[in-house]
Structure formats: C-alpha cells, structure tokens
C-alpha cells in the first residue's frame, strides 16, 4: 500500500469532518431491534423483524388500534353491499410511492393477491373471494362468492403476515420468490445502499407522506414522523453490550430487555423501561406421533407435573413481568377462561407420578429440544426436563441452535431418526387468543399444519362449531368447550404468561409500545 496515499486519505477524512458534523445535526434515532433483519419481504416470511421493517416503509389499508379495533388507514371510506358480498373501498387522497408515482387500486389488488397466497388468514379469505379489482384510479372492489365475517379484520391484521401494500410491479413477484425492490408508500424510505445485513438498516423520513388526522394508536391513526432518520443497529447482539450501550447513551432504544437487566435498567435515571400492553404465552408442545407422547395418559401425567411457576421463575424471574394463567387463550382476553384446565392448574407432582404409573409408560426417553441461542425461551426446556424427571420420565435434553430446532421440529420421523418429542416456544397473545388462530389446537393427525400433529375428531368438531357461531356469548362458552377438550387430550401445555420489557432513553418522546409490532412513527428525540 502506498503510505503517502493513505496519509492523504486520512487527512481528507479529517478535513471533511465538518460537513459530516452538519449532517449529524439531523435527529437520528438509533434502535437495537430484537433480532437480526435478514429477509426484506414481509409477505414471504412471518419473521417479526421483517414485519417491523414492513411497518417502516409500507402502509396498510387498515390498522389495529390499541383497543384491538380495526380502523381505516390507507382506506378513506368503504361500503358493503346489502348481500354482504361486494366491498367497495376508496383510498385516501395524496398517497404516493417513494419513487413519486401515485398509489392506485391496481397496486392494492396485486398486493392482496400475493398476500393471499402466503398468509394463513389471507388464504382463508381468498377461499371466499371471487375477485379483487381496481375501480377507477383510487378505488378497489372485493367481490365474495359467499359472505364472510372477517374481511376487514383480515385487511387490518396487525401481525405477520400483514397485508402491506406494494406497487403493482413489485407485488407481481411470484409469492414463492422474495421481492428485490423495496419501494413502499409508508412513513419511512428504506436506504438500500446503506443496508448492511448483520450491521445496520437505515430509514429516512418520507417527506411526502400524508398522515391521517387521527392520533396514532396501535398500527392505526396518523403516522407522524418527527425524526430525520432511524438506524437499526443489527450488529449489537450481545445483551450485556446492548444494555451497556443504552446506559451510556450510544443507542436510544433496545427492543428486547433481557429479564436479568430489568431491575438495573428500572433504576437507571436516564432510562425508561416499558412493558408492552400485549402479553406473550409460553407453551410446550407434545409430538403426538411417537412414544411416549402418543399415549394420552403420559401426556396428561406431564400436564399434571407442569406447574407454571417454576417455568416462569426460571425463564422470567422478575415477579412484575409474569403471571401463571390456566387458559390456553391467554388471560384478560374474551376467551381467557379456565374451563377444563384443572388437570394442569390444580395438578401436582404426586398426581403426575400416579398418572404416569397408571399409563404403562415403558421408560422411552423424551427427546426435548432446547434452543441455545434464544435467551427468551432457552430455560423452559430445562424446567420441563426437571419436572418430567421428577414425575418419573426419562428425559434426553438436546441442545441446538434455533435454526436447527426449527428445521427439526418439522420432521415427523421418530426421535431416534432425527425427530423429537417436545419443544417449547412463545406466542404473542393475538396469535393464539381464540380457537381459530391458536396453532396448537388443530387436530387432524399428520395433516395438521403446525408441528406436533395431534389427532382428535371431537376437538376438530368443537372448533368447527365455534367458527360457525356468530353470537358472542355462545362463542365464549364454546371456546371453553374447545379448551376443555384440548386439555383432556393434552394437545400441548401452556406454561405461563409474561410481558416483554423494552427500554429507551428518557429523551425519547411519543414512543408507542403497544406490542402489536414495533413501530417508529410518532416518536421524537
């Protein structure tokens, strides 16, 4: 290397620091997200990071406010025909893509079509849809084959996959391929050139974005942007380093406060710790295909031993942040009832041991998978293993990284051939709060969509009855019946609820921590 040239280059760098200092006079919000951002297509993947990225740069037709009500967002007005089969929507005036083109009904139609091929709820909606078409420049129409009660709910769903609206040419990307261009009509513009995977993602204010008049609430209301730039620091993955950086003011927000640091951060005068409004549920899942958990009595014995407190104490540890809850649909929601949960919520180790003895358990070891790189759930399998050992089961605790766990849990093979018996995970309450969306409840044997593959005709029947019911009061009772049957056949074990704390510098104003998704509008520094 030419030494002289290097020195000159360094000199230039030093000399040019003045304009850079000017540039830094902009307000930059530095956020440490909860995970790494790898995939930039929020329709292709359900990953929450991609969803949050979607909320930065895309807009949605409807939003969900903090009270879980659906409110219009890009849509200005809409009408439903008398036979409930034709929905006519008008878009707000002034919607514009980041490349300057106006948002049209054709963009919307193409975006919904692609989303309908990837998202579960979107797919369900598409079974009712006859056609989606543009009407004029700024309108679109959804025609149904038969009436469906959840059109607006689906369009306004707050979490993955969110029906984000993209330009037609991008939305025409085949659904099994990822998009390659990142143009939205949302409040921030994605700086593709500055994006470095595993390092940082940069978003700048979209100056031509026209927010709604309403105040921001959840993913609904006016998305007003008060900072010039948002930087996601993707390199800072070590939790201790994240906390250090926040305390020293090197970053503004950390999305995922490790429980062990909760109390330290609460005491820090410059830091504000928040709890999201929406809670999460821990869940351990049985694999119903293989011994010993193909035997319902063994599963019941495990349920009886799974007192939620040890799970919560070990994993969360901070009493402010967790609570046991007997319901599979999370406490505090309409269907969060205790019906039929006695086997677990009133169970005891003694009962578990007796049940296991009566089950004819033959000593087959339980293979339980433990993720080593997800500190948010990595202690659950340890507790599960200890409780099952106390109940009298043989346990083989296998540690692996989350990626491996995810590919392994999809395997239906016997545990000795690379399959599994149990894994534990966490769900956001809106994803599991009723018998329809709770992925652990479908019980159609090997064709069940989610891993674990329980089979129970009666449970399926009860779920179908619930889906067809429209009376809210009756629905609550029916959800209770579904839950009671699920506990009876022991589909899975809910092992407690918690809230995930977030933390930011006290200088941050207007930060919304509703928990539907992490969104960065309305915030100022």
């Amino acid at each position, binding site marked *: 290397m030419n030494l002289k040239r290097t020195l000159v280059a360094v000199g230039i760098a030093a000399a040019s620091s003045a304009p850079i200092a000017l540039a830094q006079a902009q307000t930059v919000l530095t956020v440490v997200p909860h995970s790494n951002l790898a995939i930039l297509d929020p329709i292709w993947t359900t990953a929450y990071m991609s969803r949050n990225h979607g909320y930065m740069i895309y807009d949605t037709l409807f939003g969900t406010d903090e009270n879980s009500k659906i409110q219009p967002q890009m849509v200005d007005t809409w009408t439903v025909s008398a036979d409930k089969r034709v929905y006519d929507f008008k878009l707000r005036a002034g919607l514009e893509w980041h490349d300057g083109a106006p948002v049209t009904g054709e963009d919307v139609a193409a975006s919904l079509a692609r989303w309908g091929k990837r998202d579960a709820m979107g797919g369900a909606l598409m079974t009712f849809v006859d056609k989606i078409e543009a009407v004029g420049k700024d309108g679109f129409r959804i025609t149904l084959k038969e009436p469906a009660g959840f059109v607006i709910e689906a369009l306004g769903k707050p979490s993955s996959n969110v029906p984000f609206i993209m330009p037609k040419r991008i939305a025409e990307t085949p659904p099994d391929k990822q998009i390659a261009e990142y143009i939205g009509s949302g409040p921030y513009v994605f700086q593709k050139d500055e994006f470095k995977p595993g390092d940082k993602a940069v978003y700048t204010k979209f100056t031509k974005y026209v927010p709604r008049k309403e105040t921001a609430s959840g993913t609904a209301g006016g998305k007003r942007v008060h900072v010039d730039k948002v930087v996601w620091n993707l390199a800072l993955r070590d*939790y*201790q380093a994240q906390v250090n950086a926040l305390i020293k003011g090197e970053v503004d927000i950390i999305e995922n406060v*490790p429980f062990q*640091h909760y109390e330290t951060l609460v005491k820090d005068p410059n830091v504000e710790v928040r709890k999201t409004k929406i809670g999460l549920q821990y869940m351990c899942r049985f694999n119903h295909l293989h011994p010993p958990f193909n035997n319902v009595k063994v599963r019941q014995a495990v349920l009886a031993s799974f007192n939620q407190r040890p799970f919560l*104490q*070990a994993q969360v540890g901070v009493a402010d942040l967790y609570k046991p809850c007997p319901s599979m649909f999370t406490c505090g929601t309409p269907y969060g009832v205790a019906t039929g949960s006695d086997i677990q919520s009133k169970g005891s180790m003694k009962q578990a041991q007796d049940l296991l003895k009566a089950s004819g358990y033959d000593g087959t070891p339980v293979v339980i998978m*433990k993720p*080593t790189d997800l500190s948010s759930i990595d202690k659950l399998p340890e507790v599960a293993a200890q409780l099952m*050992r*106390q109940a009298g089961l043989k346990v083989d605790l296998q540690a692996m990284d989350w990626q491996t766990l995810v590919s392994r849990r999809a395997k239906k093979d016997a545990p000795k051939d690379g399959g599994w018996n149990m894994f534990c995970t966490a769900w956001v309450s809106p994803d599991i709060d009723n018998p329809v969306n709770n992925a652990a409840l479908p019980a159609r044997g090997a064709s069940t969509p989610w891993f674990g593959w329980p089979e129970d005709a009666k449970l399926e029947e009860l779920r179908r009855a619930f889906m067809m019911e429209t009376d809210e009061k009756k629905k609550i009772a029916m959800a209770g019946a579904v839950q009671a049957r699920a506990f009876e056949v022991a589909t899975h074990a809910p092992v407690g609820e918690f809230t995930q704390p977030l933390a930011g510098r006290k200088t941050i104003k207007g930060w919304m921590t509703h928990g539907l998704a992490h969104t960065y509008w309305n915030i100022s520094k």
Partner: protein
Amino acid sequence: MAATDADRYAALSVESADVRPQETAWQRVRRNLSVRIGGVVLVLLLAVAALAPWLGTVDPTMFDAGSRDLPPGAKGEMLTLDGEVIKHRFHFGSDSLGRDIYSRVIYGTRVSLFVGVVAALVSLLLGVFCGLTAGYLRWLDGILMRVMDGIMAIPAILIAIALVAMWRASLVTVIIAIAIPEIPRVARLVRSLVLTIREEPYVEAATSLGTPTWKIMLGHILPNTIAPLVVMGTFIAASAILIEAILSFLGVGLPPDIPTWGNIMAEGRIAFVQFPHNIFIPGIFLTITVLAVNILGDGLRDTLDPKMAKRI
C-alpha cells in the same frame, strides 16, 4: 545442544562411553523449575477433577429458580430431583437458572482436562500416523503433505467452528474438531524426524538386514520422536483447552447443560456487569490451567528438546 544429541544417541555414539556420566533426561526434567510449578498445579487440578463429587458439590445440572443470580458465598435453597429442598451455600454464587457455579466449575475441571488430554492424544496419534506414512512411503508424501499444507492454511478456530457447527456438538465432535487443525504440525515434525533418522547408519543397517519397515518405524524411529512429541502434546493440550472454551463461549461448543468453563462463561455473558463472577471465576480457573500446561510445556522443551523452538 551437542549434549542432547549425544544423550539421544548415547547407545550408538562411540564417544559417549568416554563422556562422564550425565544426568538422565528424566532427572533434568524433574529438576526444572517450570516443570515443577506446572506439574504441581496440574496434579492439584487432576485431584480436583477426580474428587469433584466429594468437594462439597451438588449435581452441577441441578437448579432451583428460586436461588438464581446469587452472589458468591450466599446461602440459598436447592430443590433436588426427589422433590426435597436442601439448604446449600453457593461458594461462587449461582447462575441465571439457579445452578451452583462452584459445583459447575469443579465438574468443569473434568471436562476441560479431558478435552485437553484427549484432543492432544488424538492429534498426536493421527499426526504421527500421517508423518510416518509421508516420511516412509515416498509416493504418498507429496499429496499427504499438500493436504497438510491446505489444513494449515485454514485458521484453526475456523475449522473447529465449522466442524462443530456441522455435526451436533458433543464431546466426541468437539475433540475431533479441535484435534484436526493440529495434525499438520505433528505430521511435519514426525516426517522431518523420519527423513533425518532414516539416513542414520543404524537404520540403514537394519534395512539392509531385511527388517520390515514397520518394525524399523516402531523400533528405531518412534522412540526418537517421543521427546519432541511429548513437548508438542502439552502445547496442543493447552490450546485445546482454550479452544474448547472459545467454542462454548461463541455458542457452538459442548451442549450448554454440560458444565464446562466455557459454558459457564457463555451463560454469564448476558448479565456480565451485574454478576461479573460468572465470567471471572471460571476464567481464572481456565487461565491457571492453560498457564500451568504451557509452563510445563516450556520446561519440558527446555530440558527434553532444546531444538524444538527452531523446528516449528
């Protein structure tokens, strides 16, 4: 240096009979200060490893969520597998799951020493095999040594990380992953010794008498490689212990429920500022162990094989 050579070939050298009786290599080794210090520390650590269950420890995988994150010396409770609660003093505190760090560190000594010794043995064994083969079977020499060059061109830790990540991390895979990158150095050393020794008159004599090749290797060449191999083995053991800890620290090492120093430190990373003992206590044990092995190696090299430093 001349003295050492004379020593080594004493049986053959004509002059050696005239040389005044010298200390044997073993006596010199025992007199060496470095060997003594390193040796004593290692014997102590071996004793700790062997006596782990009787040193006031509890089951290192046992935990009680009620006793998590305790400072060193704190008293707490432990729930045993039978469901009974025992009182326990946490000499080194407890980790975020409520496991006893003292017990984990003590049991971790076993794992670290085992990994070090076995990884050294495995790489010596494979290295000696490759070296002898390359040194004797000339037609294999070229390709074998190019493969060794290739392995040496990949930084050791990258090979180890990649190998462990590919297979499921277990004691066996970790040991092999650590041992493989060390093989080329051993192979080169053995090969160069073979090439020198096979030109010696006594080996040539044996060959002309029709002694089979393998007998020559076992009878004449191996004994001469023992001293440098012992020295090299200690250094490999030291680096193996370090690499095992680094792998665990990076999250690609032995499964986290196995108590190793690296795992204890990896676990302690998350709350290092509040509970620095989670990292520093196993760190001190690790450093002392590696230091002891390295000092022992230095001493052995100075006494057994002064030419070593030049050869590698």
